[in-house]
């Protein structure tokens, strides 16, 4: 499984799952699957210590989130200890419920972090750059220039640093950076000048101020307003369908205007992702699972995603549908990695 679209489908489906559940059993299952998947992807990339590094992060996040919630939220019926109520912010009872709520928050944050970490691990920089919509061609060119120049700049930094060390610059204080930064900056800007001239000579030209751009911009402004309004109306408990309508309108407008603006750009795509049968199968499976997840949420099937801690802590419920859907982040484990 190495096609970018498949990993995007995996990311979206897993994110919907993570955003819709607070059930600690499902969250623990998701994190376990993510660790298995991440370890496999890291091994394939030859990265050492991925599991221990991320276990440390998840542990820190869990501890921090639990501590902060317990310190500042004094709600719940199972009192563990208390500080005088007149102590600013931290005064009041410390409850088991607020501790557990904080821990669940920590689980969600850790899972989200792992999700994106694996996404970064699974796709090459080139594949991620290609995900930038075609309408942003000048910015894609800029990103490509940066990524191309980056190794050269690192090499040059290394050379200048060595030269400075030979001349007796200890490179220990911030002021010691200046003899590195100056030649690096001047050399890089000279390169930029040469590059811009050769881009012009080769016919690369950004057309500014076209009518198409103005239409795209107006479309984007309206779409952002629609999505923002949908969110605000949802916060104020307006009927959900109004928000959904606004989200759909906004999303569709963005897709349409960016597609139209993208068509106006002449771009030749070389080295396209190669779809193999297992990529197609994984993609279909992930999209189907994602759609079923959305259906389960909309139809309120007994998936036991929600888990209420307050006012008194109780055991979370578990259902077969919920357990099944929690396996979504682990789907790529079923498929062999190929490059």
């Amino acid at each position: 499984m190495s096609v970018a679209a498949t990993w995007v489908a995996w990311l979206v489906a897993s994110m919907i799952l993570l955003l819709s559940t607070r059930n600690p059993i499902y969250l623990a299952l998701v994190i376990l699957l993510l660790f298995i998947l991440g370890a496999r992807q890291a091994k394939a990339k030859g990265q050492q210590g991925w599991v221990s590094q991320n276990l440390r992060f998840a542990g820190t996040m869990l501890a921090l989130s639990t501590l902060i919630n317990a310190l500042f939220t004094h709600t719940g019926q199972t009192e563990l200890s208390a500080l005088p109520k007149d102590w600013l912010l931290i005064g009041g009872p410390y409850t088991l419920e607020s501790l557990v709520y904080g821990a669940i928050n920590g689980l969600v944050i850790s899972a989200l972090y792992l999700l994106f970490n694996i996404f970064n691990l699974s796709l090459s920089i080139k594949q991620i750059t290609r995900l930038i919509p075609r309408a942003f061609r000048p910015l894609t060119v800029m990103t490509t220039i940066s990524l191309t120049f980056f190794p050269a700049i690192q090499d040059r930094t290394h050379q200048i640093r060595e030269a400075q060390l030979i001349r007796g610059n200890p490179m220990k204080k911030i002021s010691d950076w200046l003899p590195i930064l100056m030649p690096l900056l001047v050399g890089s800007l000279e390169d930029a000048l040469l590059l811009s001239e050769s881009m012009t000579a080769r016919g690369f030209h950004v057309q500014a101020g076209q009518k198409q751009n103005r239409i795209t911009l107006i479309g984007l402004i309206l779409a952002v307003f629609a999505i923002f309004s949908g969110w605000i109306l949802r916060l104020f408990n307006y009927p959900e369908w109004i928000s959904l309508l606004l989200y759909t309108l906004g999303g569709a407008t963005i897709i349409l205007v960016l597609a139209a603006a993208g068509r106006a750009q002449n771009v030749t795509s070389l080295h396209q992702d190669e779809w193999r049968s297992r990529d197609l199968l994984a993609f279909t499976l992930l999209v189907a699972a994602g759609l079923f997840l959305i259906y389960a949420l909309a139809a309120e099937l007994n998936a036991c995603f929600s888990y209420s801690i307050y006012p008194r802590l109780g055991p979370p419920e578990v259902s077969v549908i919920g357990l099944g859907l929690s396996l979504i982040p682990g789907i790529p484990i079923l498929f062999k990695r190929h490059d």
Partner: protein
Amino acid sequence: MKFRLQSLIVNLVVFTLGFLSLLAPFVLPQARNPGFSSTSFPITVSLIIVLCVLLTLFEVQSTGLDNKMIAFLGVLIALNAGLRFLENAIPGPAGFSPTFFLIIIVGYTLGGRMGFLMGAMTMFVSGLITGGIGPWLPGQMITAGWVGQSAGLLHAGLKRSRWQGKPAEIILLTIFSGVWGLLYGAIMNLWFWPFLGGASGQSWHQGASLAENIGRYTAYYLATSLVWDITRAIGNVLILSLMGRSVLRIFDRFEQRFSFQIQREEAK
């Protein structure tokens, strides 16, 4: 004139929606309504911020970018991403980062729009190189973009004064970079804090006063970020005060060299 108006409208929209989304827990207590899942809060805010970033980037690329600027910023962004690696070569305390220095200088010399682009794209390219793509990236991009954009405003303000080219210019830029060192952390925490900060509808009930909410945020900020941000601010101040003048001179020289216009020859 038309482009300026367009830019002004886009910036107003982005600034209003971006800040309203980030400040929702303060100005809209309903943001913590028990009926609304607090888990989706940071992601929804991130989504709106992504759209705001896209809007600004599209506006800047369609009106302010030519070949020279693409090459110029492309190379500078690579350099800035490289500076993040230089951090490892010359160890500094936690929170210290040389990244903001060039963002501020670019915004100051080339204007707010280029400053925004430099800030936002630096974070994006660094994210690509370091594997840092995630829900936190839109917040980093827009905040770093605002750092560069506000540096352009500072330049516009100083243009009319007699401080340009004098020590006062560097002193002002140094203070500006220090303030942003702290502000960056405070803004970056905003999308994340409501999520981490407590039970939905319990710790943040409808009708809670703005002062109470600010107090809670302050406590969270003091406990988790202040030391980190102070280090960043001190780092910014040190770098700008030590290198600001020399780098500004180089940028002034290259700005003149980059200021030529290539015009298409009309068919006869």
